[in-house]
């Protein structure tokens, strides 16, 4: 279907995917198709949540958009440019804290600038500004191991922001945090998103998180990952997550996911039986 349509897209869009697929270990016995037939457009400044059962390839899509992996089918563009390599315009934030333990907080935040050979003064001032935006300017000279999990993820967000990205890619960034911290981090992320004007692609398997954050929720099928449906959320922000509307959305998304989770389970059981 995707190949019949001409590969046209609005060059203004932050991310454009046309017929994108990824087969891991292609051409070997262990080859498996993680993702197939993805058509997705993300507008500048849009907040898109990718929702799906574990192992449905939503993280894979993020890696493809980041340019860290090559798509085996289809093509991706970002602001009109073909995605071929990683770019500081598209920052990826990982589930596990990926701060360098041998650098201080501010050195971590300004790592990208040091790659470009910026002076120490410039790096420190940019780091201070980025840390200010995540409320951690006081922790500038600390080591990552002195911070809590939530603080470390905020530093990771600051590190991404310091590159002034146009697209923020977040791979279950709050999955390792406790529920209360996660709720606070969601508010914090919405503030950062509003200030930065960047598009956000946010991977999660938490329905609550999707309802709290997204302009649009992209629901994935289980393996191989396809887009099952896209649910727009036009609730005004700040959102009342206990409203009738939010509840209806949760029910709708839960129903959509349940089929996929059931299917994934059946598949895994069948696989275990044959093994």
């Amino acid at each position, binding site marked *: 279907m995707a190949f019949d349509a001409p590969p046209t897209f609005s060059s203004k869009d932050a991310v454009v995917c046309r017929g994108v697929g990824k087969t891991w270990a292609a051409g070997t016995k262990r080859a498996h198709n993680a993702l197939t037939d993805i058509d997705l457009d993300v507008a500048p400044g849009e907040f898109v949540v990718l929702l799906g059962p574990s192992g449905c390839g939503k993280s894979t899509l993020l890696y493809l958009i980041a340019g860290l992996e090559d798509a085996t089918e289809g093509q991706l563009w970002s602001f009109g440019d073909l995605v071929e390599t*990683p770019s500081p315009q598209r*920052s990826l934030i990982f589930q596990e804290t990926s701060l360098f333990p041998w650098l201080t907080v501010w050195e971590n935040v300004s790592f990208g600038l040091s790659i470009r050979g910026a002076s120490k003064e410039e790096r420190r001032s940019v780091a201070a500004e980025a840390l200010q935006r995540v409320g951690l300017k006081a922790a500038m000279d600390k080591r990552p191991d002195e911070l809590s999990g939530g603080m470390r993820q905020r530093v990771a967000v600051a590190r991404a922001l310091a590159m002034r990205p146009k697209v923020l890619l977040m791979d279950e960034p709050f999955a390792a945090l406790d529920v209360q911290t996660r709720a606070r981090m969601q508010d914090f992320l919405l503030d950062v998103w509003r200030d930065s004007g960047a598009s956000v692609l946010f991977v999660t398997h938490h329905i609550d998180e999707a309802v709290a954050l997204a302009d649009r929720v992209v629901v994935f099928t289980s393996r191989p990952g396809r887009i099952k449906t896209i649910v727009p959320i036009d609730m005004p922000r700040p959102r009342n997550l206990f409203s009738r509307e939010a509840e209806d959305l949760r029910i709708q998304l839960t129903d959509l996911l349940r089929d996929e989770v059931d299917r994934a389970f059946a598949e895994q059981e069948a696989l275990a039986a044959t093994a």
Partner: protein
Amino acid sequence: MAVVTRDSEASGPAAGTSRPAAVSRFYTGMVNLEWLTKAWWTILSISLFAGIWELCWFFGWADPKLLPPPHIFLGNLAEQGKFFNTATRWQVGQAMNAGPSAFESVMITVGATTARVFVGLAMASVLAIGMGVLIRYHHFFDKLVLPTITLLSPVSPIAWLPVAIFLFGIGNAPAIFMVVVALFFHMVLATVAQIDGVSPNFINVARTMGASKRQIYGRVIVPAILPGMLQVLRLNLFGAWMVVLVAESTGVGYGMGQVIMLARNTFNPSLVFFTIAVIGVLGFAFDWLLRQAQRRILYWLPDTKEKLRGL
């Protein structure tokens, strides 16, 4: 324990205001008995070992002519030290008593062996880390070199001994060569394993920040493998001590290995155990120094040992 520490902290600055700095430092050092509590278990461990040995001697199970207990082989240091004067004995026309004194001989011998260990260890580390990084950096290098390195890795240092003498004759060079060749191949494989263990997230972060391959290696991979490499270095320090003795026992005119060979040829078990004790103390001391360095340099490592102790 905690009380002692607090006392010393409280009295330290106060003493510093009224006394010269050196005196107050000495005073603080005496009051702060932390080192003693730390050394306590080391002392106990060694005493226990020596004590059992002494008991065996006392009950007549250990023949002092074959297994002389510590009080015998450590009893006459001056006498033992004379045997360390292996260097001058090699010179024709030198009397047994000529040359350096017993203490000087021990120091010269220990110094020479230690220097060989460290030069060898340093050369092996630099070469191995460099080679390991090159192997992962250039794919063709990997294909070209890694099989040979794996092939040579299991070769015993003893097998290299004749090679060392063919190539370098007699002197420092063959001993250092032996240390390098015994450690190099393992350390290359260890470096490659360390590089492969670096979190892919670290590399991906650097890539999204626009780092080049060179920058990724220099600024992410090398600092990331540093903790593991220091560990490798510590383990190989012991390896270096083992190998240097083998090398010295045949290829070199003086050193601890020569003393051991002399003891063997003259049937002198006291001298064997005395030399073993000296090597043990030296190895222990240098391992302690490396551990201190590790703690200073690698402040970010989690203290798993403490966690395990709490189980």
